[in-house]
């Protein structure tokens, strides 16, 4: 009997170790690697020329919003790791989107590059935890979003903590209702504190520049793509 109870205890710890640590490593690694294939699938003829300076390509081309659980973009954040690449899919359902380790796009909010608020959600712990280190982002950090139409470069602006009911963060102008937007904002939501669901951590970024797929790959993204190919 004693041996059985000890075994059960060990199994519980094994599960926790798997859920909170090992599975994040596994899913995170899969995400990094699958981003290479997804990037190719989204834009098969994409230029591989590496660009180091931002040019002005006019108003961004905006991808149309796909159907639920369709993967349509890749998120690159160099601050979060030399191989950090996460799939962005439509919808914020748990079993069909977020639990795959994907970042989910709130339906009805702006698309990457669109005037308004491009709002996404992702796990902070478990299931690959794409936003595990959201709080380590520093003001000015570049956030790259890749779609079939281009690279959209967002710049991290700051964090906010809200209650789970704080839908104001999804407004076209975050936390200001009834105002028509003029800026291109990106909002990332995840749970706070870690391992809890009592609050939400919100990360804001604003778009700095964009470049069409045909113009080439931003240098920071090219480095991540190269690291994931190896």
């Amino acid at each position, binding site marked *: 009997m004693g041996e059985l109870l000890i075994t059960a205890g060990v199994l519980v710890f094994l*599960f926790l170790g798997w859920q909170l640590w090992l599975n994040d490593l596994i899913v995170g690694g899969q995400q990094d690697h699958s981003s290479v294939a997804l990037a190719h699938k989204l834009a098969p003829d994409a230029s591989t020329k590496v660009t180091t300076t931002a040019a002005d390509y006019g108003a961004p081309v905006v991808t149309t919003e796909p159907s639920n659980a369709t993967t349509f973009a890749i998120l690159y954040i160099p601050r979060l790791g030399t191989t950090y690449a996460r799939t962005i899919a439509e919808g914020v359902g748990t079993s069909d989107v977020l639990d795959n380790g994907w970042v989910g796009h709130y339906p009805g909010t702006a698309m990457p590059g669109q005037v308004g608020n491009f709002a996404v959600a992702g796990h902070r712990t478990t*299931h690959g935890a794409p936003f595990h280190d959201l709080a380590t982002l520093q003001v000015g950090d570049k956030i790259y979003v890749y779609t079939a139409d281009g690279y959209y470069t967002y710049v991290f602006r700051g964090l906010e903590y809200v209650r789970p009911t704080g839908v104001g963060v999804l407004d076209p102008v975050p936390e200001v209702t009834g105002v028509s937007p003029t800026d291109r904002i990106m909002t990332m939501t995840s749970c706070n504190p870690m391992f809890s669901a009592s609050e939400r951590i919100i990360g804001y970024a604003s778009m700095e520049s964009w470049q069409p797929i045909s113009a080439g790959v931003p240098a920071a993204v090219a480095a991540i793509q190269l690291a994931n190919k190896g």
Partner: protein
Amino acid sequence: MYGALWRLMPGPVWLRVTLMIVLFGLILAALVAFVFPWLNTFVNVNDVTVGTNK
């Protein structure tokens, strides 16, 4: 439980030890591959979206 398992194993001590390690490895692999992901679908401690709380 483990004593019975030990007596079930054939051969000399080194073979028994090897078999036990292989057996535990297989059980661990099965847990990680099948049991833990299934169990995880019942654990929802981390809602990450705003406004969609049930």
